[in-house]
């Protein structure tokens, strides 16, 4: 299964509207985010999410999830092995529900080591893979 297909499964989690996956070096492995958000924006934002999770683990070892709740959305940063899964969600998404529902997805995404192979572009699709 392609990594992006795992990300699409995250949309079944109540409140989740999109997601992307970075590797341990902060490189984009897969994305399920509207195409008007550029890859490099996701990389820069994702690296800050990774920094937030790393910082939280200093006083609280073993922390595996950081949620930033903004006025217009919530950003969930979830450790997936060496990778980082970032979920974009409605601001009212319940943390406990997202945490439980994404556990299996994060476990499978932990096995991803390289970006998905390029897929044929579909101009009708609202979302795209890494480009």
């Amino acid at each position, binding site marked *: 299964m392609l990594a992006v297909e795992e990300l699409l499964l995250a949309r079944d989690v109540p409140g989740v509207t999109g997601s992307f996956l970075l590797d341990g070096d902060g490189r984009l492995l897969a994305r399920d985010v509207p195409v008007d*958000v550029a890859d490099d*924006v996701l990389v*820069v*934002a994702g690296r*800050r*999410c990774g*920094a*937030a999770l790393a*910082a*939280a*683990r*200093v*006083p*609280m*070892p*073993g*922390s*595996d*999830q*950081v*949620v*930033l*709740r*903004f*006025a*217009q*959305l919530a*950003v969930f940063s979830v450790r997936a092995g060496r990778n980082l899964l970032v979920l*974009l969600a409605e*601001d009212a998404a*319940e*943390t*406990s529900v997202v*945490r439980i529902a994404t556990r299996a997805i994060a476990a499978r995404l932990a096995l991803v080591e390289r970006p998905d192979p390029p897929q044929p572009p579909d101009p009708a699709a609202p979302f795209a893979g890494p480009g």
Partner: protein
Amino acid sequence: MSNRHPADPVRAFRVEGDGYVEAVDPAARQVSETVAYLARLGAAVSELLGAGDLRAIEVMGPASVYAELRHSPIEGPTISGLLDRLGSSPESLRDRLHGRLQ
């Protein structure tokens, strides 16, 4: 700032807009300083994604944190939060924080 019972695993903390930290013990102080850093990272994420003001920060794991931010046009945000060494859900910490604020 005090807790309701010495055995209570939940610790309160607060970071004023000028950076002054109020915490009941060293662990809560360290967490409060970390949460203040997370707020700075969150502001950068918001700029990138157009997400609006950062309102709350949650950390989950063996321990858990729930913190809320109140923004001021003059100085940095004021952060009020709770640390639970036993890792209760952010929702329960949120409810408890709101109970404190009432």
